[in-house]
């Protein structure tokens, strides 16, 4: 399979009045088409910065990025606009990119139907539950047909039960639509349950400490059933030790 994204020696330094902060150093990573990769690391290690750089919201100060597809980005909060209906919210990206064609609108309607949100399309975000709102945010991102999806702690605002359901939903949606995903999280279980590979970053300046290949050797693996595999806790232990958390 071909690489859809390649990071070569990515570095990022922030300049501030009281000095220079090196957030990222020598990050190297290749992501294959259709892969789900998680990036995990201690807080403040620059994982979110890395996503912003991949998305092009920030510029790296060293290294190069090769991208082979459109990027979609999901933030920590759903960031739905309360003054727009669900349907208008979902069309936001198309509007901004000036590609609100009837064909794309049809695609959006299909997505809404497929993921059980069509009947809510004239409602406002405040009338929906947290899990539904997160799904709306995903469809808003999918509407622009990205081939790479970046998830920045996208589920951390949800409560535990909803979170498990939404990660499962989103996992299925991404597999259905054959989208490559890169997820930043601080939740080890979440990373293991969803990913093909887990990238562990070091403390600041963040650099790749180790990359774990996750394989449960089961058919129809999903974020819920893989938690029952005996390998799950093994992966958890290994990664936990590597993160080297001190309270």
């Amino acid at each position, binding site marked *: 399979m071909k690489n859809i994204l390649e990071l070569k020696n990515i570095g990022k330094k922030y300049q501030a009045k009281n000095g220079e902060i090196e957030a990222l150093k020598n990050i190297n990573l290749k992501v294959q088409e259709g892969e789900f990769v998680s990036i995990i690391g201690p807080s403040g290690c620059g994982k979110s910065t890395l996503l912003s750089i991949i*998305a092009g*919201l920030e510029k790296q100060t060293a290294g190069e990025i090769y991208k082979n597809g459109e990027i*979609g*980005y999901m*933030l*920590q*909060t759903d*960031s739905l*606009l*309360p*003054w727009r209906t669900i349907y208008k919210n979902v069309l*936001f*990206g198309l*509007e*901004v*990119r000036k590609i609100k064609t009837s064909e794309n609108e049809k695609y959006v309607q299909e997505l809404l139907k497929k993921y059980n949100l069509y009947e809510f399309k004239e409602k*406002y975000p*405040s009338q929906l539950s947290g899990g539904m709102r997160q799904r709306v945010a995903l469809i808003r*991102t999918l509407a*622009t047909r990205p081939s790479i999806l970046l998830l920045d702690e996208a589920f951390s605002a949800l409560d535990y039960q909803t979170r498990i359901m939404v990660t499962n939903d989103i996992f299925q949606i991404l597999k259905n639509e054959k989208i490559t995903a890169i997820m930043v999280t601080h939740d080890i279980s979440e990373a293991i349950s969803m990913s093909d590979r887990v990238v562990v970053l070091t403390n600041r300046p963040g650099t790749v400490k180790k990359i774990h290949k996750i394989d449960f050797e089961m058919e129809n693996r999903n974020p819920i059933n893989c938690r029952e595999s005996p390998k799950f806790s093994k992966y958890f232990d290994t990664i936990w030790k590597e993160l080297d958390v001190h309270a």
Partner: protein
Amino acid sequence: MREKNISEERKKYLRQIKKNKILVVLTRLAIVIVFIAGWEILANIGVIDSFIASSPTRIWNTFINLSSSDLMMHVGVTCLETLIGFTLGTILGIAIAIVLWWSKFLSKVLEPFLVILNSLPKVALGPVIIIWVGAGMPAIITMALLISLIVTVMEILNGFLETDKEKIKMAQTFNANKFQTLTKIIIPANIPTFFNSLKVNIGLSLVGVITGEFLVSKAGLGYLIVYGGQVFQLDLVMTGVIILAIVAAIMYQAVVITERIIVKRS
């Protein structure tokens, strides 16, 4: 929520709310009635001098006499000046706030000037305004504009800068440019800020107009009040103040109702 079968407890709760509401309105009415009646009685038995404190009947008579002559003209002039000052202040205020939001450099440069202008009592500029734009309606409108403009700019700019950063970032993930961020995120997110500033503005414009009328005019409620004071007709002064209070309340309510119509969603 509309339910057919309301439980006893719910009925009791709703009755209690209604009862409280009625009690508040009745108490308010009572305060007004006691105040007016007390004023009238004390003036009649001579405890307060109605020559310097006026009295409700004298105010009423002045009101009736004025109505037949030129009261409506004075009210009209004040309302017109206020509306012009208010509209100009709001439009200019929003426009300047947008420019300052757009250019961080400009807003940084102008910051100390805005702070100074904001704390300066604009009335002090009265003589300058009169000399520059002439004594008359333009001077009054300028005064209203000066008083409301800086506050509008600062309040709206503040609202713009405090817009949810996540929403702005969300727009940027779709490569929104600055203009799109402004029209699709910043402005719609700040509709409540606009209305708050309109509510403050209508009051400030009225302050500006009355101050202006005190200084220069030949018509308007401010003129009526100052004239009444000069000829020692407290009846006229009091009537003017009461009409002014009513005009202010009506204008404020007009903004509140407009807000309700435009911001339908909760």
